[in-house]
């Protein structure tokens, strides 16, 4: 067969595979939105949840989800960044580093309930941190680190070598080069990692049941003191996230409108993730433009 027709056939195959994926995506997301959007109202977003009466909202859960994502990223991103830089630039090429890499990858296959129980026994009980957002953030950090580290390492490695050589030739130290030149050029790739891991945080339930808990105390949104127990900013309070709420409502919820709450909350979750991803891409682009001269490819 001549290469041109092979090329045509291959393109058709690829396009049809992509077509299947697109169809799946459209089906899934419209299913969630169509079943959920009718239940979404301002009242649903702004009222607290109910445990047995109809008409409960998701105000606290929505806020907790976003807060947890931010806290987790604050903890896990610097660690992943440092580790990613180490693996990409400083790590010697020997078997020890290979073993470390493999162990990190294996870690990500642990079921979330195992990670949740580990964080529960160590942080919640042993260190007496208690059921709290911060314990939840630590648990989520544990299984976000592998993917995030790997992603940062790859993004840094994919920055062309001449950038590093040029900077070194100008007398910059390697570390300064990494922070000031390599890291900014790697931002678009790193954003992917952040989006994937924050998506996982938004959607995670099993690990959080044992760490940040599955009940939400009443929050006071006027109290900005993070050390006061009813303040919405207090990281030491237990918090139920949207995904946990969806799980709870579906598995043991006895409110008469459990189905409506579950589908409404799922639709809200999807919208929040869309907004978050949009925002992350936007920030990534801004930073990239600020630190480098190029446009995002």
């Amino acid at each position, binding site marked *: 067969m001549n290469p041109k027709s092979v090329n045509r056939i291959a393109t058709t195959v690829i396009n049809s595979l992509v077509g299947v994926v697109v169809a799946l995506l459209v089906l899934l997301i419209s299913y969630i939105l169509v079943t959920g959007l009718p239940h979404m109202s301002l009242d649903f977003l702004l009222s607290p949840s109910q*445990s*047995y009466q109809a008409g409960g909202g998701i105000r606290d859960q929505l806020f907790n989800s976003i807060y947890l994502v931010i806290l987790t990223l604050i903890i896990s991103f610097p660690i992943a960044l440092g580790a990613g830089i180490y693996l990409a630039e400083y790590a*010697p090429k020997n078997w020890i580093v290979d073993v470390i890499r493999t162990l990190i990858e294996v870690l990500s296959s642990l079921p979330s309930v195992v990670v949740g129980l580990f964080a529960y026994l160590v942080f919640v*009980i*042993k*260190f*007496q*941190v*208690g*059921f709290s957002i911060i314990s939840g953030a630590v648990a989520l950090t544990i299984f976000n680190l592998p993917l995030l580290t790997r992603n940062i390492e790859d993004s840094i490695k994919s920055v062309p070598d001449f950038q590093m050589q040029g900077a070194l030739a100008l007398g910059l130290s390697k570390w300064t080069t990494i922070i000031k030149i390599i890291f900014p050029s790697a931002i678009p790739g790193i954003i992917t990692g952040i989006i994937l891991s924050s998506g996982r945080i938004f959607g995670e339930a099993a690990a959080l*049941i*044992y760490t940040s*808990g*599955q*009940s939400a*105390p*009443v929050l006071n949104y006027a109290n900005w003191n993070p050390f006061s*127990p009813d303040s919405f900013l207090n990281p*030491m309070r*237990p918090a139920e996230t949207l995904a946990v709420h969806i799980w*709870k*409502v*579906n*598995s*043991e*919820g*006895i409110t008469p409108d*459990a189905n409506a709450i579950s589908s409404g909350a799922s639709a809200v979750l999807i919208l929040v993730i869309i907004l978050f991803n949009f925002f992350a891409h936007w920030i990534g682009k801004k930073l990239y433009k600020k630190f480098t001269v190029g446009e995002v490819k």
Partner: protein
Amino acid sequence: MNNRLIHFISALGILILFLTGCSSNNGSKSKEITSVGSTALQPLVEQAAHQYSTEKGLTINVQGGGSGTGLSQVSQGAVNIGNSDVFADKQTGIDAKKLTDYKVAVVGITPVVNKGVGVKNISFKQLRDIFTGKFTNWKQLGGKNQEIIVINRVKGSGTRNTFESSVLNGEKALNAQEQDSNGTVKRIVSSTPGAISYLSFSFLDNTLQPLSIDGVKPEDKNVEDNSWKIWSYEHMYTAKDAKKNVKDFIQYLQSKPTQDGLVKKLGYISIHDMKVVKSSDNVVTKK
């Protein structure tokens, strides 16, 4: 190489400092009650805690995690209250003598089937034979010609223990699908033709067909005089030397107003309405 070693050692030093810094962070928790365990009981405790804590200025932290977790944690002293669907002395590995049992509600459990099977009433023996695998088609029970699909509950869960001790009479259940929550079971039974499982009363609605057993309907009043035999207690366990505010909170849950109000609203049966008492060995006596 030497240089690298120095870098590693200093990094290790920071790490150790960091970890010891974490572990020395202990707060005072005297005004806090933590309760962990059964997800089935959680809505009740959570709602009661909500009302009680605003009255008393306490922080009551109610979490799930399952009956096993509740019992392990309370006997290790990690939490104040362990919520459980099962008697502590029926769980291997728990020293029940170290714990105090408070029964806070009664829950009735009923077999449910998919609406299409055409059976509404069966006998105890038939029910047992379905769950031990002797009947395989609804035709054998006077229903449609449809395969019986048994959805069991997870081994060790409170609902399954109750069901097996009241229905199976010591026989071994067949190896079947297992699901762990009322909500999931409800969805599967209502969407799978020929399915049978069992649920707490509070999860019944018009998507399912509850079964009467020997003509007795699954209703609260039948549980109260034990004419409906599949029911169990919801327990709250504390250590023997529990703090006063923990005991007060449980007493609040057991009080007549809470039992007649909240407990009934959440679909449980009040402990004050029960005319009989069940022991952990499933022996029922008149109150």
